[in-house]
């Protein structure tokens, strides 16, 4: 079993995931942010499943490993769909919904094709390697997509506070993971950095919950100071 710090962070993260769903329901925004709720509900379910498997078989067991990596692929896919739904929110007024959907489908197929090409040479456990590779590649695709979305938010001067904060949190979350991944490559798995990844897992649902609690759909950011244009 993992240590007490790991367990505390894990249970806090799962509680925050549920908190977001509860906040969405309380604020009557469940359907508006349906895919974000779906992702966090799925994540909560997976977290509970992982806990029972870990308790039954142990952290170093093959059962936990398989369940972890297959569920991680599923969650990354759900996160990808949630991210695309944020694109639909941002670009909704421009009526480019079809364009976004086609782009998402091409991107998903491209990532799946690339992942398959990487693992196609594998002689055994093709499906496990594919799930693992797809999850890792989709993560990086999500990272790039979030930065592009943030650029679009800046360019379109988006003022919907909730949407802006949700996207900003997602950007920080992805950036934090990318940074910790790079640091772990230098420092190894058994340093203090190993606690950063689980802590980041708590950050996203907590920040989304706070956004949901503090702002309504009508909340708008104060416009930037007007630039004086000489006549």
């Amino acid at each position: 079993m993992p240590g007490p710090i790991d367990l505390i962070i894990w249970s806090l993260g799962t509680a925050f995931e549920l908190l977001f769903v509860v906040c969405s329901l309380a604020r009557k925004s469940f359907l508006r942010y349906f895919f974000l709720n779906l992702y966090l509900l799925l994540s909560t379910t997976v977290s509970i499943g992982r806990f029972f498997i870990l308790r039954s078989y142990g952290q170093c067991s093959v059962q936990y490993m398989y369940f972890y990596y297959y569920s991680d692929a599923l969650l990354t896919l759900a996160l990808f769909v949630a991210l695309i739904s944020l694109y639909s929110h941002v670009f909704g007024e421009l009526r480019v919904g079809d364009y976004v959907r086609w782009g998402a489908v091409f991107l998903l197929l491209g990532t799946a094709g690339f992942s398959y090409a990487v693992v196609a040479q594998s002689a055994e456990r093709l499906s496990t390697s594919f799930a693992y590779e797809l999850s890792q590649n989709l993560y990086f695709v999500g990272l790039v997509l979030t930065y592009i979305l943030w650029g679009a938010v800046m360019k379109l001067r988006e003022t919907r506070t909730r949407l802006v904060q949700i996207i900003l949190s997602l950007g920080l979350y992805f950036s934090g993971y990318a940074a910790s991944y790079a640091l772990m490559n230098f420092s190894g798995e058994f340093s203090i950095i190993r606690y950063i990844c689980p802590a980041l897992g708590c950050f996203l649902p907590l920040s989304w919950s706070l956004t949901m609690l503090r702002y309504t759909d009508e909340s708008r950011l104060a416009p930037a100071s007007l630039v004086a244009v000489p006549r």
Partner: protein
Amino acid sequence: MSRKLGALVLALGILVGAMGIKTVLSSNSKGTTMKANGPAPLPIPPPKQTTAQSN
């Protein structure tokens, strides 16, 4: 049709960019796994890929 083509080109650009970032970040990789979902503890690394022998 041109919009679909534009979406395809954009998707390919994003994919290339994403894989570029992955390559840069894992240039000194010790086989570290990128975990992006939830605060659960990491399991043992997945089985190593063994390349099929071509005859």
